[in-house]
């Protein structure tokens, strides 16, 4: 009896494994259709990050440009103030760079006509 109790379910389980329900192709197609519908939007369909940023923030461009100019002007005024004799070397170098390279590149030789 014990042997029968051990073997009957095992043999039936083995038979059931051999006769397992098979997935129909129609079900597979339904699952994949759901997957397509749930798929995140492809990256190519969205504008690149830089372009998206420009599109979303273009209204702020004039204001940002003005703020940038004001910042540069403030920096230039601060840097162009006559330096004390014991000014550090890096400050002199920064002023030289501003006068000799940065401002000519921006087309601003003496924007506030201070004639230093």
């Amino acid at each position, binding site marked *: 009896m014990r042997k029968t109790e051990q073997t009957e*379910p095992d043999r*039936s389980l083995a038979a*059931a494994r051999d006769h397992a329900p098979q997935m129909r192709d129609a*079900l597979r197609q339904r699952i994949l259709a759901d997957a397509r519908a749930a*798929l995140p939007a492809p990256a190519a369909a969205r504008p690149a990050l830089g372009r998206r940023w420009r599109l979303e923030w273009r209204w702020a461009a004039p204001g940002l440009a003005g703020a940038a100019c004001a910042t540069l002007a403030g920096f230039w005024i601060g840097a162009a103030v006559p330096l004390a004799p014991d000014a550090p070397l890096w400050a002199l170098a920064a002023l030289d760079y501003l006068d000799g390279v940065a401002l000519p590149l921006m087309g601003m030789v003496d924007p506030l006509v201070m004639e230093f």
Partner: protein
Amino acid sequence: MGRPVPDSAEMAQSDLLARFARGDMQAAEELTDMIAPRLLRYAARMLGDPVEAEDIVQETMLRLWRLAPDWQRGQAQPLTWAFRVSSNLCTDRLRRRRGGVPELPEIVDTAPGVDAALMQRARADALEHALMALPERQRQAVVLRHLEGLSNPEIAEIMMVGVEAVESLTARGKRQLAGLLRGQREELGYDDA
């Protein structure tokens, strides 16, 4: 006992899910072929109804697709997670059935000399019917352990019980199956056992 260590197949499933979340439909196809047939077998045996089982599989996979972008790698394995969702959906369906009494096993052919293939078919059918007569939790444990080949820790995670409880459910389920099949020993060709 702690969470089972993910094997390479489960890691591959997580990778596929991540690829799908990035828009790769090929990954969805591979994942479907890995998981859906197993869910279908499981749900069909839990419900005894292949049409309802298909609904369960489709719903489970849909939830997996929707969850893919937020999938926490390493916290759960897709197959285990899918089995757990299917289990819950099956339980809901079984609860909705009122007074559903499983039919007694039908024997396909009792004539002497029936060939081996038919006998195997008859044994499989008898087992499917006997499974439906088991209490739901025992059926769940027996199907996952003996038909789907999952480990006890995996089953424990799916059923949200301890490993000892799984062992107990599986053992009791098998004993009850033996009792249910005993009455058909002759028809199922078990007299030679």
